[in-house]
């Protein structure tokens, strides 16, 4: 396009004037607005119990996908369960941040063992871990089991062993825990509920 100096100035001033008028609000553009899309729509909702303390608040875990065969879900949000009578939807700061605990890079995901004299943690299988624990328990019980106390009364105690149970266990799991451990003669039995 050919233009002389005068035409160039005319176009410039017309452009400046036009944009100034628009900027002053003579011809406002449509300013539509919409809130951020609700991020839990169609997410899979799973009820669970917060693992931290003895209060055992109910939580709702939201994950992507609908559990279809080829869809791999991932947790996108966790918040309080309003139907749980313990917390009725509320959570403490630790519970409110549960998602970051679940997805933490530092989270322990499998059994590890640090052998005596070693400074390294070594990953082992669940079978190995349970077997090792059972062997340790058996050896300690055989060595220290007390059938009678000083007064000669039958007590059948295993005084050198203690057990710490989960605070998030249900009634049924709690019942089984107590029955199993009392059968072994364990007296020091508590749950994380009191820590």
């Amino acid at each position, binding site marked *: 396009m050919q233009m002389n100096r005068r035409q160039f100035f005319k176009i410039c001033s017309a452009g400046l004037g036009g944009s100034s008028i628009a900027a*002053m609000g003579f011809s406002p553009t449509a*300013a539509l607005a919409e809130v951020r899309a609700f991020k839990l729509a169609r997410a899979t909702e799973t009820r669970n119990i917060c693992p931290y303390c003895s209060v055992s608040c109910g939580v709702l875990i939201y994950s992507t996908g609908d559990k279809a065969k080829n869809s791999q879900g991932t947790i996108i949000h*966790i918040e309080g369960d309003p139907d749980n009578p313990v917390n009725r939807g509320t959570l403490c700061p630790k519970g409110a941040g549960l998602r970051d605990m679940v997805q933490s890079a530092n989270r322990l995901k499998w059994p590890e063992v640090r052998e005596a004299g070693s400074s390294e943690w070594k990953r082992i299988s669940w079978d190995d871990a349970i077997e090792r624990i059972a062997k340790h328990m058996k050896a300690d019980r055989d060595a220290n089991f007390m059938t009678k106390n000083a007064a000669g009364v039958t007590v059948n105690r295993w005084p050198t062993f203690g057990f710490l149970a989960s605070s998030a266990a249900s009634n049924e799991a709690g019942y089984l825990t107590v029955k199993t451990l009392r059968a072994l003669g364990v007296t020091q039995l508590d749950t994380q509920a009191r820590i």
Partner: protein
Amino acid sequence: MALQSLDIRQRSATTTAAPQARHTIEVAKLIDVSACIGCKACQVACMEWNDVRDEVGHCVGVYDNPADLTENSWTVMRYAEVEQDGKLEWLIRKDGCMHCTDPGCLKACPSPGAIIQYANGIVDFHQENCIGCGYCITGCPFNVPRISKKDGKAYKCTLCSDRVAVNQAPACAKACPTGAIHFGSKEDMKDYAEKRIADLKERGYDKAGLYDPPGVGGTHVMYVLHHADRPDLYSGLPVNPSISPLVALWKGAAKPLATLALAGVALGSLFHYVMKGPNEVSKEIEEEVEKEAETEDTK
């Protein structure tokens, strides 16, 4: 953005009125300072819901962490140790956007549609329209918005407009384990506040009251204070907040005056063009000048 999921009351830098045919309820968040234990569940719930994470900070000697609102921390607990009449009180206030009925940020904002006030009272920032000028910070009587270092846009509490749009309470209000944060219609919240205030008065807090400052037309985040006569005790809550007179002048009186001046200049130029016409050089003068130039050249 084809559909409007909520009715709009006001838009920034937009002079045309928003359509208001429908009538929806006004919502409000009530923060009962006397029931707060300062656990920060609201801070965590806010970050979890809104998918923002702040950097791990440093202890500044008090429980305030982070020490101030940031573009990622839209709400912070402020812990004030106040000694009055030989009594030490720990006044813990959840700070954040107050969602004013007459929002200073919206008034100061020059970008159309960057700040929206919904009919339910929520004042929301729309980052896609934000130009990052920071006028909203100047306009805010409570010093709340913050500019992100990542994208240069302003962020603040949205009152979880996405949750409220589907009839859910804001994340902070849902999480609060002591019930210090309540959420509902503004009317219901005022009624509930009255009950709390009556209870506090019975317990010897004669000056207990509701913080719903009229200087900004009332707010959609209200406080129940045990010392409603001294809001400044609560980490400097403004006693009578209002929009800065400079913002009011610039966006109020100055705007039509400037429009008038601009229109005057345009009109004047038009008249000048019509009456005087373009400043043309006559043929004779042009030839004379050319001749002179030629003689100059020959010299």
